[in-house]
């Protein structure tokens, strides 16, 4: 059985990419199972989907502990612990990174024993407006890496999954998926199937036994105010707003009121300050600032300019 896990951010088309890959497997004669993992999937937040494919009936369900292929649509997720991209990987796992850099460098940086394949991001997909196409590109490349899926079968799966969204959406996704399929041709068939899991091999996890507390202790009540600030939603950000204080009018309310996340505070001197630990990078402040004193830069560029260890 092939076990494939696709990681990305909400909005990058990962759920759809999983469906495309599942349908492509099915079209190639496999039994296939694909599912996004249900949770608080939000645009920009880490999410993942799983695909299983086998010539035999698939009886395995649920999360994927030992993937044969991990597909990463957005390399910035590697620094987000909650994304858990490398969960369960081993020397037999292939890691496909939709990103930048060299495969050999990634292996060293990640301390990763398996094979790494880099699918370079194109100029369009690096922009937020085009980021939704990452899922189709990843599905195309993954189809080639597993082998056994023909180019036409990939195209048919895209048509089936994306046809209802209209010809323009289908055409751009087809172009990108097939280009990705072709781009990783040197690594065709590099992913190996692993044996189906057997109940006999089941090892009980390290449960922590909790005593049965009275309801007033055990109930999930929250007794402190605004604890949400402990969640660092700044990690969702792919674009960063930067204030040009020389042009800021100190009008005190526009950016601060219209930031949905309460992530812009006004300092006593009436200048605004962006809370980068929580700013999700929606860029509403950039578009509403009357004197255009806030501009947007890619988060990656912003982090490269900072001294090491200063990332939020």
């Amino acid at each position, binding site marked *: 059985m092939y076990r494939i896990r696709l990681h990305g951010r909400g909005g990058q088309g990962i759920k759809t990419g999983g469906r495309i890959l599942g349908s492509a497997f099915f079209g190639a004669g496999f039994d296939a199972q694909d599912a996004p993992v249900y949770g608080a999937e939000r645009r920009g937040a880490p999410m993942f989907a799983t695909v299983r494919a086998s010539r035999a009936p698939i009886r395995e369900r649920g999360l994927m502990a030992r993937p044969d292929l991990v597909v990463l649509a957005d390399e910035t997720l590697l620094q987000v612990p909650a994304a858990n991209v490398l969960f369960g990987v081993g020397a037999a796992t292939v890691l496909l990174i939709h990103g930048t850099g060299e495969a050999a460098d990634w292996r060293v940086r990640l301390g990763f024993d398996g094979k790494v394949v880099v699918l370079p991001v194109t100029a369009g997909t690096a922009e937020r407006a085009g980021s939704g196409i990452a899922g189709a590109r990843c599905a195309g490349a993954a189809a080639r890496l597993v082998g056994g899926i023909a180019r036409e079968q990939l195209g048919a799966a895209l048509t089936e999954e994306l046809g209802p969204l209209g010809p323009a959406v289908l055409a751009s996704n087809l172009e990108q998926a097939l280009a990705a399929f072709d781009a990783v041709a040197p690594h065709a068939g590099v992913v190996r199937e692993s044996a189906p899991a057997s109940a006999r091999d089941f090892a009980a996890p390290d449960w922590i036994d909790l005593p049965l507390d009275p309801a007033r202790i055990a109930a999930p009540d929250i007794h402190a105010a605004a604890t*949400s600030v402990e969640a660092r939603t700044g990690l969702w950000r792919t674009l960063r707003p930067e204030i040009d204080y020389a042009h800021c009018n100190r009008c005190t309310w526009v950016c601060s009121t219209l930031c949905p996340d309460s992530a812009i505070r006004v300092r006593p001197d009436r200048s605004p300050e962006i809370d980068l630990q929580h700013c999700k990078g929606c860029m509403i402040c950039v578009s509403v600032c009357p004197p255009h004193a806030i501009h947007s830069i890619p988060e990656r560029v912003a982090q490269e300019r900072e001294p090491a260890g200063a990332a939020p």
Partner: protein
Amino acid sequence: MSAAIRRMKDLPSTHLLGAGTSMCAGCGALLALHEIYDLLGVRSVFVNAASCMTLLAAYPFTPFRGSWLYTSMASAPAGAQGVRDALDILLEQGRIAPEEDLTAVALTGDGAATGIGLSATSGAIDRGLDFIYLCYDNEGYGNTGQQSSAATPYGAHTATSIGAHGHCGTKKDLFAVWIAHRPAYAATVIGADPLDLAKKIEQARALQGPRLIHALAPCPPGWDFDPAIGVEIGRLAVKTGVWPLKQYLDGKVTHTHVPHPRLPVEEYLKLQGRFRHLFEPVRDAATLGRIQSDVDAYWAQVAA
């Protein structure tokens, strides 16, 4: 209670709602909620029907500084009734002082407000329940992938309306449903106009009984637009007359903003992917014409 809000400069510059929620970047509902919470304050109990906003408070995290509790989709007004009754009993027995009283706020999406929870809402208004009902309206079941709801507008593409002309129903008029009950107050607001919103929240706070605050909530993933233009879309909803800003008070409906000149609805529609099928590959003049004529008819009736 804060001083009266008349100008933008009177709006609060410190914010009560905590950052770090799991709402999407650019969420139009969170925008309205954080503006509203600044004014309602911590002496409130939010009773949240199942919706996107249910994820505001996921143990052990909450952005609220006051109380919040969760109900099933249909029963936020019933939950608010229970909270109100409990507070009344505590007050009556002298177990809390009058200044310790709290405002019960039902917080729901449009799916609960216009569909699943409408019956419970109607009953609560009938009983004269002293509560604020805050509906954030992203015109679909956003939390589950934007399936159509009773509040989905005509022509919009949703996960369950994928035909050539989009959603074939029309948006249920929640404001009209409410005022048919003769509540204490009802108002439409939008986060993109914080001053109009603030005045209406102040008005609602000054009253007792059932009060509706109905906020249009532009939804980047559900409506398919770049989150950066969420406020622009909200402003266009008002300028094109698609989202009338109005209030019901003392038996009378007053429009707090009459767009003049009123922009063509296309200015609003064309920025959203959910209406893209009306513009490409070929222009759907019939559907666009009907959306415009519905808006025209609304404002003609207002002027009459």
